């Protein structure tokens, strides 16, 4: 039974019939700026032009988006309005007097409901199911994850992961439905950006000064996420179960990134980040696109100690999920600048070295995401190991035997900017 039900048919503003509830699903698609609502109501219509009232639409409805559709075609709507909004001044009339007060009534308050009067031209008479489509603001969503890592992450023992995810819906409108299909679109806010490195007086025309500028938000690819089961929509905050998957097989992977390991000459190695890598497969109990969100990582079970907090990016079906378990002192790395040689009048060969030390008594799989410390464009000239270039990075992935050191050297070809 839907929470809201009433719709009235009025001929020239006089009520002549009441509605029943149509047993059709309600659909909400919550986007970054607005939510698309689709609901069904039953109207008693007469053939030809008439006025009807639709009750209980949220005050946050964008009336320009309102559409009425019959089962197979649109219901022609000639005009509509949500009635008179209170005047935004502080005056009111009381009998013969006028009164000004500081608490002047403004626009509709958030969470109110409103009635819309429409003039429609119905092609036929009788009870008809009508689909209402409209956009509403003030509904937001976010995703969050809880992960429990079962067992110790050791090379000779299998590791499994339990994953719970939930969607938090903040509904600041009066919209309420008992059962609604829920779609989430767009991207929720990204994790907070890292603070820029201090304050320096830099030449604004230098590319380096971009590091100190506030990042300009760029358009990002958008995705749609479907909540598998119908949910109850109520005003306020709701936490909705999204996916639960237990005992997902996970592989440990040690990752060295240029952001975490700077090029330096220090003697002590930098700890590598330990990741658990999972596949988003239906066979594992997942198999749906996962929205980005923060991840709380526990040891043993959900009630175990919270060991880390990370971020899961958008993960498509069959995509790879990576859960960070934090830095590991067992595997360390260095990045070193080996110098440069002039290759041409305006070109250089620049050499870098990456060294990995495995202190564990078993081999480990490592991945190096190397963003060469070069401001301008570059090309890989040579490398001691095979690698893949993706998104301006060199990706090395290989096994490092137990209690050993492994070096990767690569040479870049760079050219000075031609101004």
């Amino acid at each position, binding site marked *: 039974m839907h929470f809201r039900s009433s719709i009235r048919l009025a001929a020239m503003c006089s009520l002549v019939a009441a509605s029943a509830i149509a047993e059709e699903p309600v*659909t909400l698609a919550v986007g970054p700026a607005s939510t698309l609502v689709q609901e069904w109501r039953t109207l008693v219509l007469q053939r030809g032009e008439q006025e009807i009232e639709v009750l209980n639409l949220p005050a946050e409805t964008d009336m320009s988006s309102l*559409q009425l559709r019959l089962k197979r075609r649109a219901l022609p709507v000639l005009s509509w309005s949500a009635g008179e909004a209170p005047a935004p001044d502080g005056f009111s009339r009381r009998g013969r007097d006028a009164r000004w007060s500081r608490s002047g009534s403004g626009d509709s308050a958030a969470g109110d409901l409103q009635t819309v009067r429409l003039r429609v031209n119905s092609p036929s008479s009788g009870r008809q199911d009508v689909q209402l489509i409209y956009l509403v603001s003030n509904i937001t969503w976010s995703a969050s994850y809880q992960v429990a890592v079962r067992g110790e992450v050791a090379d000779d023992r299998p590791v499994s992961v339990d994953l719970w995810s939930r969607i938090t819906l903040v509904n600041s409108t009066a919209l309420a439905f008992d059962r609604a299909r829920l779609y989430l679109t767009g991207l929720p806010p990204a994790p907070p950006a890292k603070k820029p490195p201090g304050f320096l007086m830099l030449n604004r025309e230098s590319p380096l000064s971009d590091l100190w500028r506030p990042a300009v938000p760029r358009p990002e690819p958008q995705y749609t996420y479907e909540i598998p089961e119908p949910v109850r929509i109520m005003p306020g905050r709701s936490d909705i179960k999204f996916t639960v998957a237990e005992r997902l097989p996970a592989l440990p992977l040690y990752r060295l990134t240029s952001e975490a390991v700077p090029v330096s000459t220090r003697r002590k190695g930098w700890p590598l980040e330990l990741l658990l890598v999972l596949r988003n497969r239906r066979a594992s109990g997942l198999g749906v696109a996962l929205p980005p969100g923060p991840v709380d990582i526990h040891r043993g079970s959900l009630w175990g100690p919270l060991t880390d907090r990370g971020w899961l990016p958008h993960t498509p079906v069959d995509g790879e999920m990576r859960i960070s378990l934090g830095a590991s002192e067992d595997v360390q790395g260095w990045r070193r600048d080996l110098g440069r040689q002039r290759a041409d009048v305006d070109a250089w060969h620049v050499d870098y070295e990456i060294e990995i030390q495995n202190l564990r008594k078993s081999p480990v799989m490592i991945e190096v995401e190397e963003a060469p410390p070069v401001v301008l464009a570059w090309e890989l000239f040579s490398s001691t190991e095979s690698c893949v*270039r993706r998104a301006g990075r060199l990706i090395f992935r290989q096994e490092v035997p137990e209690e050993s050191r492994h070096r990767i050297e690569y040479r870049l070809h760079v050219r000075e900017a031609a101004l």
Partner: protein
Amino acid sequence: MRKVFCLIFLAALAAGAAAADISASAPQGITLTVYDTGLALARDLRRVDLPRGEVSVRFAQLPRTIQPETLSFSPPPNVSGIDVREQQVVYDLDSLQSMMRRYESRLLTVTTPAGTESGVLQPMQDTSGAFALRKNDGSVSVIPADKVMAVTFPDAGTQAFLEPALLWRAVVSTEGPQGIRLSYGLSDLSWRAAYELIMEPGGTAGSLSGRAGILNRSGADFSDARVRLVATAGRGGADSAAALRYAYGWRHPSAGAAATFPAPTGSFDLPQPVTLKNNEEKFVTFCSAPSIPVSRFYVYDGVQFDRFQRNRRNDWNYGTEYQTVVDQRLEFENKEQYGLGFGLLPGVFRLYERRGDGSVDLAGENRMDEVPAEGRGSVLLGPARGLRGERERTGYSEVVPSRAYEETFEIRLENDTASEVEIRVVEHLYRWNNYEIVRADAEYTETAPQTIEFRPILKPGGRRAIHYTVRYSW
């Protein structure tokens, strides 16, 4: 003598409605020209029965936001026999200050957190909004503005103008019933347009509906008004950062001064009269095309350039940055055979796509510019959901130094939707106009000078990479 007359006239005004001997009828035959900037021009007909001689005429039901300096009327005096000596638009409920001016030396009641105080309002030079009330015992109480919670103005209906009114003092030479047409400008009356297009999955046609929302906050109701909606190109105005130019007739250059009135770019007459109530936004469906052919396609144009000026011909670093968004675009023909064929006003365009379960999905939204009759509507609807692209230069070589260079690119595309899609990959050969594609592992076409386009098809969940090498020579 003139000063005395003015004093008498103002005293009559202060007495409110009693000063106007004759009231004109309610407005009839209203026509409104509404601009998208919030300005509007109104024209209405008032009927009035006038005796010969000097009369005072009152016209009511005017908008609160009327611009009195724009008010004019017809027919002219030599035709109507009405010689208007003075006219004034009065409205006291415009602000608390207006009411205070009207109630100077009159009794009113002020409510403060400490209670209510009544007294005769005394004029003050202070501009802070404080109230000075003279009590019956002769004392004066000054109430600071921030302490005032409410003010009650007794008998306001007769002591003040609670609705806007136009007052005339006129000399009538031709008595009898007359029709007077008032014209005036007003503000806080604006419009916006929105278009909703619903497409069936994988379809090539959609159902388009256009609606105009007219927001009336002018303070007046307009019954059965004929409405023309006018789109404008935005406001001009002097810009201090603009280049200096010689204005016509000036001896020295100055910052360019443009017309401040927005230039109309298009208009649309609503087919039916519309009743607009105050503080109401009324929506009117002005176009409906139940089945209009549309072309929806995806474009990945990945290259982007940083903000630094470079030599694009031989800078090795030029054009090596990229963005990942695949845009979706939609085009349709504005033709009469589809139920359109007239100039479409600029407005918000929303594309909906029907899902398999019958519900619809908002696939994109953006502003659409005006589409002329028989023209082609084209809307960029933002990022296509589930599609992503990357563009990376994988090779650069000088085949003949300073004579011929080669660049190789890899474009990677991802389709995380449940549908098969074709993506138009646009590549700009920006370095020089003498170029040759020496290698490409996908078919392409030249769509414009120095522009080629690949059209790969990606299956649901599919990945695809395109490689090509371009040689520039000088």
